[in-house]
């Protein structure tokens, strides 16, 4: 267990953790300028909050926690910008359009998903991560925001609805649309092969 360093030394935070924080932010934001800003804001906030750092966690964990909040704030702010508002004002109609292509009139799969012998093995395959990242990038901006908050950040749906100002029905429809879209995208872009 680490003890808190006796000095508040932001220059050392930057030297020791700056690259890590930047890579973390870049992974979430995929935007170099925004990631740089996030690191700066994180360190400035850390400087103000230093007195409250308990030393219960490592400095890196503490800084990463601050960074996560900063990134969430940015997502929330972005969600209110015009380019992130829904492409379609009616997520249910959008889901219905996708479902029309996937299910027949009786609601059965036109092309049923295949069962894989060991799906979790995919998590060790570079090919899988390439396809998965590609598919995530293909989500519509609002869908990507909602899905990210729910699945990557673990926010509950009530919180997401409130932050993004959407109804709980639309929130669910968007999450399902995102999952269905990802599943179909993986089907196209990733060939399951257990022997890989």
């Amino acid at each position: 267990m680490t003890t808190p360093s006796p000095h508040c030394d932001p220059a050392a935070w930057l030297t020791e953790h700056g690259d890590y924080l930047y890579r973390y932010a870049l992974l979430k934001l995929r935007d170099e300028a925004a990631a740089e800003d996030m690191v700066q804001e994180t360190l400035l906030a850390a400087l103000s909050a230093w007195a409250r750092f308990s030393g219960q966690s490592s400095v890196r964990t503490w800084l990463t926690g601050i960074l996560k909040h900063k990134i969430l704030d940015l997502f929330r702010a972005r969600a209110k910008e015009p380019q992130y508002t829904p492409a379609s004002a009616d997520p249910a109609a959008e889901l219905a359009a996708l479902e029309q292509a996937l299910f027949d009139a009786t609601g059965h799969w036109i092309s049923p998903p295949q069962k894989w012998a060991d799906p979790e093995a995919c998590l060790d395959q570079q090919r899988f991560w390439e396809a998965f990242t590609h598919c995530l990038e293909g989500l519509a901006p609002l869908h990507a925001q909602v899905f990210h908050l729910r699945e990557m950040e673990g926010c509950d749906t009530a919180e997401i609805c409130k932050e993004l100002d959407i109804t709980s029905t639309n929130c669910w429809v968007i999450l399902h649309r995102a999952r269905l879209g990802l599943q179909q995208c993986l089907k196209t872009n990733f060939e399951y092969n257990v022997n890989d």
Partner: protein
Amino acid sequence: MLSCKDASHLQSHAYERPLSARELIGLKLHLLICKGCRGFAQQLNLIHLACRRIDESKGVGADDPGLPPDTKTRILKELASKQDENP
């Protein structure tokens, strides 16, 4: 009997909230007889797991480019001026 489309809705719902007993029984019965929906269930679970692991698996690799040096200098200046404000 549930259709595959209904079953896919319930499967997705289950990631957001606990299903009611009625929903759960309907879904289990459907999955028993429907291979396609069992495949779909697996892939939803894989997507869910991948989201949880994306940080470790993809990410924060020590070989990726770090902060550009100019940015480091800029941030250092910002930190120093803030420290001067509130010594």
